[in-house]
């Protein structure tokens, strides 16, 4: 059997999900010693504590877990890379350094001031990587560990498991209209605007920024970039734009809503549909009040679920339209050959976990999925994305990254798309929550 990177990513993703589910799979055995052995799995879900002036505070009771996680990743990802090309020893040596840089990124992101400003690990991982590659230089031996595509694809399979379709109707039809009708319209219009009006040379850069701005920020950018086989500099550009505008909109949107004396439900729905990152949506909603926060977070959550549909659509469009030779029709076999197969792992994980969630009672679903498997898988996903961003930074040439911004087109694309998003979301939220379904608004 010939291993491909996509197949390795699906295998590793499936293994990590099964590993996270071990506790529940062995539950019928009820052996106390086995349960105690499971503490190692919990310890590996390393999340650094918030610190203000003393960085060591972030590591309280986290050293054991961090070392265990490093060993676990070396073994699991080392197995994956040896299926492809690298030798285990060469990968392991390079990976230790990349892991330590990822740890440094998480450390900076957990500093209280950076945390409050929304400067997350993605930004720090890329910045540290770019600094090292462009100032200090990357030694040849370190390149064996720069597997950003493998890290991203494996992380996306884990993300797929978190896309639970049962959450779609959480707030009823108005939420579905705000999150699932406006978003694709904005995505397609922004992509069209980028191609036809701005004439952006790279379609993959265009779709990555469009998805990033219209769907849910960094996670959508990662999925769209992987589905459209975008260059690492293009993903970095999209993430940079998203993080800057999320920080601005998180403060500006609630201020505008307060100034306009807008009702909390409308303001919350507006924030939920427009601000990129889930965490920023929750914070911006909370600046207005509890109702606004609940509505904003729920709308954002429904929008987050669109990520799988978007990634699948982009992968199909790229395989069938973008990569085809001019004047030739593309056969179904050809589309299948070009199709990024890891998307199937992403969709498959989403379908399996959505079905399992529907079969379980709400209490069991929370205990076994949200606080069980996801506790492990979302931590692994975060680490994999952070490792990917460090790898991207370490292999990015600053001049190439700078060239992405030539003429300011990515910035114009983001701002134009976001303005359309802001207008359409407000209009749809007002129609749905105040004209079509006012009875739902009254209950909130």
């Amino acid at each position: 059997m010939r291993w491909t990177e996509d197949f390795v990513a699906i295998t590793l993703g499936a293994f990590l999900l099964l590993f996270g589910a071990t506790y529940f799979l062995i539950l019928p055995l009820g052996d106390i010693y086995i349960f105690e052995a499971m503490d190692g799995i919990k310890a590996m879900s390393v999340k650094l504590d918030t610190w203000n002036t003393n960085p060591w505070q972030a590591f309280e009771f986290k050293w054991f877990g961090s070392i265990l996680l490093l060993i676990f990743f070396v073994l699991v990802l080392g197995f994956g890379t040896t299926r492809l090309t690298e030798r285990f020893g060469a990968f392991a040596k390079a990976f230790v350094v990349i892991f330590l840089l990822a740890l440094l990124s998480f450390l900076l992101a957990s500093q209280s001031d950076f945390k409050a400003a929304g400067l997350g690990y993605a930004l720090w991982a890329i910045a540290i990587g770019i600094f090292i590659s462009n100032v200090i230089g990357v030694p040849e031996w370190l390149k064996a560990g720069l597997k950003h595509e493998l890290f991203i694809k494996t992380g996306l399979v884990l993300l797929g498991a978190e896309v639970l379709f049962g959450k779609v109707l959480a707030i009823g039809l108005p939420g579905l209209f705000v999150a699932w009708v406006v978003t694709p319209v904005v995505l397609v219009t922004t992509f069209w605007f980028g191609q036809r009006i701005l004439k952006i040379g790279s379609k993959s850069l265009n779709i990555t920024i469009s998805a990033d701005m219209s769907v849910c920020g960094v996670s959508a950018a990662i999925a769209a970039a992987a589905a459209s086989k975008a260059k690492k500099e293009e993903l970095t550009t999209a993430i940079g734009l998203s993080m800057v505008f999320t920080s601005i909109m998180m403060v500006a949107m609630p201020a505008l809503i307060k100034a306009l004396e807008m009702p909390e439900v409308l303001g919350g729905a507006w924030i939920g549909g427009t601000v990129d990152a889930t965490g920023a949506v929750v914070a911006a909603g909370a600046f207005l009040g509890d109702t606004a926060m609940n509505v904003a977070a729920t709308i954002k959550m429904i929008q987050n679920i669109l990520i799988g549909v978007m990634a699948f659509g982009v992968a199909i469009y790229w395989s069938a339209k973008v990569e085809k030779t001019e004047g030739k029709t593309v056969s179904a076999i050809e589309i299948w050959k070009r199709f990024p197969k890891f998307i199937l792992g992403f969709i498959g994980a989403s379908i399996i976990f959505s079905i399992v969630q529907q079969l379980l009672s709400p209490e069991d679903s929370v205990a076994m999925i949200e606080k069980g498997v996801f506790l492990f898988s979302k931590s692994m996903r975060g680490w994999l994305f952070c490792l990917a961003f460090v790898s991207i930074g370490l292999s990015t040439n600053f001049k190439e990254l700078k060239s992405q911004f030539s003429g300011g087109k990515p910035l114009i694309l983001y701002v134009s798309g976001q303005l359309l998003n802001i207008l359409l979301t407000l209009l749809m939220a007002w129609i749905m929550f105040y004209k079509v379904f006012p009875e739902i608004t009254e209950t909130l």
Partner: protein
Amino acid sequence: MKRLLKTILFFGAILILQQGIHHSSQFFFEEERNVIDTNNMEPSLFFYTDSEHALNAEKKVRNQINEQ
């Protein structure tokens, strides 16, 4: 020497950024900063499953609608 200087500059810039955010939050977005700190929020979280607040909000909204 040049590399060392650039490294010092890089870490210096991070320190200046942190101090800038710290002091500006005392003047410009103090109220917002208090909300974030009091509720232990993380504005940089990407996905809804990363946020306890988002998961709780969905359950609250779903219950409110179902109760009607």
